[in-house]
């Protein structure tokens, strides 16, 4: 992993002085998830517009977790999170409620604070004015994300009418350190039949997961986090990466399956392995990916094809077995790994951007596929921004430093940040979230 010289430097005494005197960005160490720590420390304000049904539901859930929940900003003392339920707004006039709830709290938020705005999907609005108001929530959330400092994040959750109780796993995720590097995102919660885990410290207990590209980088972190959350993990990577793969598998008590995801029978071999060794498959994460960067003007067919084949077409082929009969169990979870390059585009990455934008399209198609919805299978994607791995360590220093800082959190993310979002997508408690693409990018300016 490329070391973050700047990030480490500014956390030193001298560094802090230099940074504050010349106005350079000052990244904080982000609060990351631990199964043994409380979801969030400190006081959480939960309020809303009108009768705010979701605020009531969320407040009682958080109280049952023994969190300190208030419905009004305290006169003195700081807040660690603000949850504002705007689900009943009908007109842009009503947005004043949001301002009134959030604005007074911003100056006294603790570091690594959370702002969670709750709304309804604008498409379901019953009037143009309501749709305008609901759509405005996104703009406000993104602006708050950019206004927050010291590791604070702001995200918007759109809950479909009638599915209010499906929001719990998402609220937990957003308050916790799992979402440390996630800001400015819109998460849509819809229908589904969430199943609460017996133990929230091991939400994937008893599940079997397969992770491709697991020998290193983000894939290795995904394997570790899924195992930490209780899953039995099948770690897949190319045979040439077998020694690193074996270390990952042994460290988490999983199994190593050496195969190239572009092999025609890759999907079937994964399914067979999971079925014979572990009795089934509950979670599949398509993480394997490559870059072959060149300006489009200089990209030959081989570079074009290899990136599309590994990053996109192999997923289509493997899904035939994984989503077919005898593959992923009903109620299972499929997670894809896109990239902000697939959303923003990147000079010299036409092939990569094509593949990753394709992954977004595929996620949307599968996420709303009626047959998969009927089977209770969720399909979601993460779109990582700048994550500190061997892939990004190859970027020249100058460009790398820019990539690392051009986001609201002013630092690169860690592989574990991507993994935590994937682990959340993989929870049965999260059955109402499907077809979502969540960026794990610290609210990068690219493609925003």
């Amino acid at each position, binding site marked *: 992993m490329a070391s973050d010289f700047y990030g480490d430097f500014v956390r030193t005494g001298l560094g802090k002085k230099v940074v504050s005197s010349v106005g350079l960005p000052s990244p904080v160490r982000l609060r990351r998830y631990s199964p043994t720590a409380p979801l969030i420390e400190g006081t959480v304000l939960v309020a809303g517009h009108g009768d705010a049904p979701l605020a009531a539901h969320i407040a009682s859930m958080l109280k049952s977790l023994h969190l300190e929940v208030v419905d009004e900003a305290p006169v003195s003392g700081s807040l660690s999170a603000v949850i504002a339920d705007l689900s009943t707004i009908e007109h842009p006039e009503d947005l004043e409620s949001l301002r009134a709830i959030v604005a007074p709290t911003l100056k006294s938020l603790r570091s690594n604070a959370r702002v969670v705005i709750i709304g309804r999907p604008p498409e379901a609005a019953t009037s143009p004015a309501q749709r305008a108001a609901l759509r405005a929530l996104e703009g406000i959330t993104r602006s708050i994300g950019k206004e927050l400092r010291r590791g604070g994040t702001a995200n918007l959750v759109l809950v479909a009418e009638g599915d209010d109780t499906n929001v719990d796993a998402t609220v937990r995720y957003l308050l916790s350190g799992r979402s440390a590097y996630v800001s400015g995102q819109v998460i849509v919660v819809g229908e589904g039949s969430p199943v609460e885990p017996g133990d929230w410290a091991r939400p994937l207990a008893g599940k079997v997961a397969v992770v491709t590209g697991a020998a290193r980088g983000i894939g290795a972190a995904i394997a570790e986090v899924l195992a930490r959350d209780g899953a039995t993990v099948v770690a897949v990577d190319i*045979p040439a990466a*077998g020694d690193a793969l074996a*270390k990952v598998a042994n460290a988490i008590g*999983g199994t190593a*399956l*050496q195969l190239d995801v572009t092999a025609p029978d890759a999907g079937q071999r994964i399914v067979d392995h999971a079925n*014979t060794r572990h009795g089934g498959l509950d979670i599949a994460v398509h993480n394997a990916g490559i870059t072959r960067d060149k300006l489009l003007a200089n990209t030959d067919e081989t570079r074009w094809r290899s990136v599309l084949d590994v990053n996109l077409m192999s997923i289509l082929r493997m899904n035939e077995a994984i989503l077919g009969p005898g593959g992923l169990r009903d109620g299972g979870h499929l997670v894809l790994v896109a990239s902000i390059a697939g959303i923003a585009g990147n000079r010299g990455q036409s092939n990569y951007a094509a593949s990753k934008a394709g992954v977004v399209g595929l996620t949307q198609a599968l996420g709303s596929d009626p047959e998969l919805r009927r089977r209770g299978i969720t399909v979601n994607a993460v779109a990582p921004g700048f994550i500190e791995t061997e892939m990004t360590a190859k970027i020249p220093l100058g460009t790398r430093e820019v990539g690392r800082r051009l986001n609201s959190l002013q630092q690169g993310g860690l592989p574990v940040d991507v993994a935590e979002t994937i682990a959340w997508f993989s929870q049965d408690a999260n059955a109402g979230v499907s077809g979502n693409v969540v960026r794990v990018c610290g609210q990068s300016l690219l493609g925003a």
Partner: protein
Amino acid sequence: MATTPRRAAILGGNRIPFARQNGAYAKASNQDLLTATLDGLAARFGLAGTHLDEVVAGAVLKHSRDFNLTRESVLGSALSPTTPAYDIQQACGTGLEAAILVTNKIALGQVDSGIAGGVDSSSDAPIALNEDFRQTLLAANRAKTTGQKAKALTRFRPQQLLPSIPQNTEPRTGLSMGEHMAITAATWGITREAQDELAAASHQNLAAAYDRGFMDDLLTPYLGLTRDANLRADSTVEKLAKLKPVFGRGEGATMTAGNSTPLTDGASAVLLSSEEWASEHGLPPLAYFVDGQTAAVDYVSGEEGLLMAPAYAVPRLLARQGLSLQDFDYYEIHEAFAATVLVTLKAWEDAEFCKSRLGLDAPLGSIDRSKLNVNGSSLAAGHPFAATGGRIVASLAKMLHEKGTGSRGLISICAAGGQGVVAILEGA
């Protein structure tokens, strides 16, 4: 404990790519190589933290400090530290003999699961003190007074600093294995062309096995090596014909570096268990270990060739199992030298040899050569002595599994000291 013998299943295997001497593994010890191999096996079969009833392995070239090589490797691996282990040594037969030992214990109900393996490094070979120097030091050590010690040490001579490096020669004949083989090859009239053909086929078959992904679940890369370093995918009879002979003399010198195995470093391991253990762990058997046999010949007097023992072991095994030499789908005859394989096959076809030496009424006959070493053998892969048995057992088990239930394979391995270890596997 089981009262009738149980079937011992072969669940799979792992090896690291074999390196050429002083190549990629130049600085790795036997323990490093074996530990990495056990870790790869543990990862493939999800055995991290798992207790196995026994791990049996060994090395031919072994440092005295490695008296507990296998147990130390287990302790350094991902396997549970409660897994017992012991070392064995039967020259190049070590790996297959280890499999016989573990499967016998499974059959008897003494263990339910185990690993058989082997490792050898020709690069990190033990170098002993010069024998004179060693005697000098021992004498000094035995001396009681400082004066006596000093006196004993005066026997030291600078030439005693020359170390004693282990050599691939038979202690009782002073001949290298290649020189022995050259004599046998000449006796049996094995041609240079036939040897080169066999060598080229070995390389081509192993290269094809890699290309179609056959090795994907048999191998785990190590220290940057992802394929056997000795493998020459573009090997042809024409290219091999250009090499100068290295063993034998004059007209009869047919053995070259191309049709003899080079010194190599590597390790292999095979996971074995009872059928119950296999199904409890969700690991489908690839094959069953049916039976094994050893034999030895009197090569010292020159009555028989050094590497001819498998020719004697196989008919005994066939007789016990009521099988003929033709009852097999695959034959794995270890290619110590191309000539070893060819002499063995020729001997089984020879009525006189079969009658006078093996005591058979009729020759064993010939085999379908298209069933021989179909995924390459030691000429291509290399031959880290004790690791060859595990390499063959794992890949043959996989081949038999692909072939189907009841398919049969024969393994034949020659070993130093005029010995041979052979075995029969059956597809599950």
